[in-house]
Structures are given as C-alpha cells and as structure tokens.
C-alpha cells in the first residue's frame, strides 16, 4: 500500500560526518567555479559555441543527492546538475573538452554541454527533450530491481519538465512496478521565462507523489544538508525494495535560462532574496561555525578549485577539434561499438 504523502519540509537534517561535509563544500565550490568560467568567461570569449546552461544557485541539489550514491547506482542528471558528473567521476578536463567541442571529450564533438554519459560510471545524460530520461530511468530501475543488489536510479528534472507526459508515464510505471527510483524535481522557479504559477496549478509539486502512490516530499533545495537527509530517506526506502519517491527541491535559478538570456522577466528583488540563501555560503558558514574547517582551509579550497579549472581550460584549449569526416563514424554499433560499450554490471 502506498505511504501517506508528506509535503512537510524536512528541517531536522542529520549532519553528515566531517569528511562528507568537506567533500560537499569542495564539490559545491568546484561546480560554481567551473560553471562561472564556462558562462562568464569562455562563452563570452566565443570559445564555447552553442547553448550554455548552468545551475548557479542550485548546486546543492546535485551535491546533496549524488554524493551518497554507491557503485552500481545510476544517476540521470538534468542540464543544471554539473556536480553529479564530477561526483560520479568525470574529470574537469573531460567535461571542458566536451563543452569546447574537442575530439577527446566524452562525446567526441557529437554533442555538447552536459549531454555526457558513461554506463561504467553510472551516468545517463539528458537529451534536449527534457523529461525523456524519466522513462529511461524506469528501465534502469527494472534491471536494478531484478539484480537485487539494492541499487537505485536517481533522475533529475525541472518543474517545467514536470508538465511533460513522459514524467507522468514514468512516475506511474515506477510506482506500479515498485521500482527503486528517486524522482528529483529541481524546482528553480522559472522554466525559461515561465514562472511556476503558469506552469502548474498546485502549491507544491510534492503532492503529485501521492497521485501515483509514492511519497512526495518538498525540501529546501538551497540547503545541502536538507537535500542530503531527504534523499537519504528515499534512497533507504528504494534500496529496501519499497519503491520510488518523489522529492521537490525548492530553489532558484540565479541566471537566465542560458548565457544569452538576461532574465529581464525575473523581478530583481527575487535575485536579492535568493542570494541570501546561497547554498555555498550557507554551508561554508556552518562549517566555520562548527569548526569543521577554519578560514585558511576554506581559502585553500577556493584556491584549489580555481587551479583545477585553470588546468581543465588549458587542457581543453590545447586539445584538437574532431575532423569533419568523423561525423560519418559510429552511427551504428556494428562489429563492436566503435568507441566503447561499458554497461554497468
């Protein structure tokens, strides 16, 4: 029988150990620095062609969820979950090569941004038809359930995407089949220029969990510890065979939809309001107050992430572009896939 849904915010977050807290801060800062370089430097310099979508302000969702995944788990991130890729083992060098259309990026120049997948690292990327990964997560969940190793699939999508039929088909199928899936809605308040009141007519999307027979919970998406504990409960439920959960992470997109969008449709006071809830400053303040880290250590993290991004940019800039005729390769996976085929065992 389905559990009674809860739309209460989880405020009593259990604090993870010091090591996990440090890792969280590190990945939050690395994500922020990398995306800032992409959006505010490389794109403006014309070194990144095509669309640029970043998750400034909503980094806590990817970090608070992906950081607790195990080997064998599979994450299907959205285009604003940069941190999920880092946590699952993609290097900044690989990621920057992909953004800069180089031949040694994981997509070999065939696809851009964070459309990066690798089954050996348990990452299935989005396509631009947002929400299509939700049914794919169902297939992943079916196989994970059959293998009985307690693994889960974790799929992210935005509140705008939540209007798409694929999301609904997938949530229904996952609930019917009791699949080990966490549906995470990154509710960042704007789908391109469309605010939530024009996107859906309920107060909280979390109530939709109940409609499918799964727990639906909302959480402060700018509080990495709250995200962590909420996802942890859902993971425990999924790993023990009790089926899927739906988590709505309330956050705010501190940029336009993409780098070319000045977001003039967003009232300025909203940026000011949400800036005060910045997930990185909040965690940093907490770690300093609890003496998990001192000021010098925080400064060291800042210097380290900057250095890493510098290295990745230099590496990508020195990397070759693919040859035009490479476009003809690898349409089919015949006679062995042409570059790799590494399903998660």
């Amino acid at each position, binding site marked *: 029988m389905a559990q009674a849904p809860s739309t209460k915010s989880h405020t009593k977050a259990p604090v993870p150990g010091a090591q996990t807290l440090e890792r969280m801060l590190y990945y939050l800062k690395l994500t922020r620095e990398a995306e800032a370089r992409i959006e505010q430097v490389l794109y403006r310099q014309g070194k990144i062609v095509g669309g640029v979508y970043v998750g400034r302000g909503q980094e806590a969702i990817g970090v608070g969820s992906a950081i607790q995944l195990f080997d064998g788990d599979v994450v299907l991130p959205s285009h604003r979950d940069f941190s999920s890729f880092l946590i699952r083992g993609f290097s900044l060098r690989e990621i920057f090569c992909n953004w800069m259309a180089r031949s040694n990026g994981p*997509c070999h120049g065939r696809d851009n941004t964070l459309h990066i997948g690798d089954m050996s690292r348990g990452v299935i990327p989005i396509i631009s038809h947002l929400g299509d990964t939700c049914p794919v997560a169902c297939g992943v969940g079916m196989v994970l359930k059959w293998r009985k190793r307690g693994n889960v699939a974790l799929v992210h999508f935005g509140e705008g995407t939540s209007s798409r039929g694929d999301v609904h088909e997938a949530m229904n199928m996952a609930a019917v089949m009791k699949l080990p899936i966490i549906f995470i809605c990154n509710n960042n308040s704007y789908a391109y220029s469309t605010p939530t009141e024009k996107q859906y007519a309920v107060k909280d999307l979390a109530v939709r969990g109940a409609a499918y027979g799964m727990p639906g919970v909302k959480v402060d998406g700018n509080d990495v510890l709250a995200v962590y504990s909420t996802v942890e409960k859902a993971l425990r439920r999924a790993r023990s065979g009790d089926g899927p959960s739906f988590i709505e992470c309330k956050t705010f997109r501190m940029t336009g939809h993409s780098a070319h969008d000045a977001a003039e449709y967003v009232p300025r006071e909203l940026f000011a309001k949400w800036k005060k809830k910045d997930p990185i400053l909040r965690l940093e303040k907490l770690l300093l107050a609890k003496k998990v880290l001192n000021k010098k250590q925080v400064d060291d993290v800042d210097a380290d992430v900057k250095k890493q991004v510098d290295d990745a940019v230099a590496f990508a800039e020195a990397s070759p572009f693919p040859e035009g005729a490479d476009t003809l390769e690898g349409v089919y996976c015949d006679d062995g896939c042409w570059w790799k085929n590494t399903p998660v065992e």
Partner: protein
Amino acid sequence: MAQLTYLEAIRQGIWEEMERDPSVFLLGEDIGVYGGAFKVTAGMLEQFGEDRVVDTPISESAIVGAAIGAALMGMRPVAEMQFMDFISCGFDQIVNMAAKIHYRWGAAVPMVIRGPAGAGVHGGPFHSQSNEMWFVHVPGLKVVAPSTAYDAKGLIKASIRDNNPVIFYEHKYLYRRTKEDVPAQDFVVPLGKAAVRREGSDIALITYGAMVWTALEAAESLAKEGISLEVVDLRTLLPYDEQCVLSSVRKCSKVILLHEDTRIGGLAGELAAVIAEKAFEDLDGPIVRVTAPDTPVPFSPPLEEFFLPNVQKIADAARQLAAY
C-alpha cells in the same frame, strides 16, 4: 521441418532467443497473462516468469524509454506495440533517445520494438498504417519488414541479437495467412540483405512486406502474357540492400517500385532517386511507382480495396512499362 504461420514463426524466434540469452526480456501491454492482442507472446509468461514477460501500463513512451534504460544496463529488451499505429506515442523516445545514444556517447542500445502493422483487415485509420518511413528517415535505427514465415523467424532472431535499436514491422495480414516450412533449429536471416523471390528478365519489381505476395501473384499472371517480372523483397528497409536493388534494375532495365505505404516520402521515392543517380544509363523506361494514395487508411471494404495496391494495379503498370 514444421509448417509454421508467420505469427508462429515470430513467436518461435522470440522464444528461442529467450531460452538462448537470459538478457532477452519482453515488455508491453497485455503480453503476459493474455499473451498479446494477437497471441505472439502466448505461453511466455508461464515459461519465463514475470521478470522476463513484463505487462506494462498503457504508456508507449514509458515502454520505449524503459526498453532503452534496460538496454543501457546490458539487457536485450523486446518491446511490443499492440499495433504499430500506437508507436507514434513512443516516437520521441525512439527517434531522439534510442537512435542517437550510440552516436552521442558511445553506448550500445540493443533493443527491438515490434508489432503488427499494415492494412487489409478493415482496421481503419488507427489500426492499419504502414508507418515504417517515420523511422527509415532516422539515422541510428534499423527497420525490418519480413514477408515470409522463414524470414520472420530468422529476422526477429537477428534483430534481437543486433546491438542497435531495431523497429520490426510484422504485417498483420500475413500473421495467419502465410505458412511455410521453418526449421526448428537455430538460424538467422541477416539484417540489410534483400532476397530475390522470383527471377525475371523484363521488369525489376522492388517491394517488401505483404506486397511481396501480391507482386508474386501479379508476376505469375503476367508471365502468361510473356512479361517476366523479377520480384525483389527488401526484407530490411534501413539499411536497405542497395546492391541487390541496383543489380536487379541493371539486369531488367525497367523497374516498378511497389509498397502499401502512401506515396509521398515513401520508400519508393528514395529508391527511385538512388536508381536515377546510379543506374540511369541502364534504364530503358521511366521509374514507375505503385503505392497507396496519399490518404489515411480508410475503413469500409470498398474504400480500403481502392486504397491498397493489388494484382490488377501492378499488372496495369507492368503492361504499360513493358510496352514503353
């Protein structure tokens, strides 16, 4: 060797692949206890269990998406569309997700989407379509359309073993009307290879699916008038066997392209272009198309009869072309 219907041959092919490879599993609507709307999966739930014969909600996009996810996890899903008409509801997952994954980031997506297509059984506009060209235009997919029971078994087995997303068109008119000896032992019919069903010398007739039988009947009748038709069955529509098509055209010097699908954007148009580009010098007459008109598939028997190509229409076209 046992005589099998086209439907039984598909069922036997799937069954054997399920026995041979534990990564093969089925998903779709009403395929378990009920055994599928046409009974292709009858008995499979009892034999293989509910983890390998998965009844789903009515959600074609979720069915296709789940097949993709399972394929990425190393499985070989075979998804049933109750009617191929309903594949439109899973279209996005097929053309944007399944077809492009290998090209984009290198993973294999070994999956089959199969189901009944085609007209001739008064199914009306939503149970009779030949919508194969929706997918023939998509790089990364393979599209298969068997015409015989032997091929149906051999091609479904090859499709299941293929590392790419395969759309497998079963012609529902043939399900119980076509029967032949089919070996009980393991065999495959390779994807991408056409078959010459009848040798001829005057006109190369290129077709596929149920129209192969209509073409053969027309060829038999025309032979009595001294017109020799060579009938080529494409078997796989993407990638199609260009070499076989061109060699038949070069041999006969005249060509009729026949399909049950509607005309604009049908496979005949593509083949006509290839023949014009590569075998123009070998032609002794215009490239002729015999196809359905550009309308939805109508329901009422006289309308559907008017819609479908038949022996008469083929014979008329062949006589005109022979006299050219």
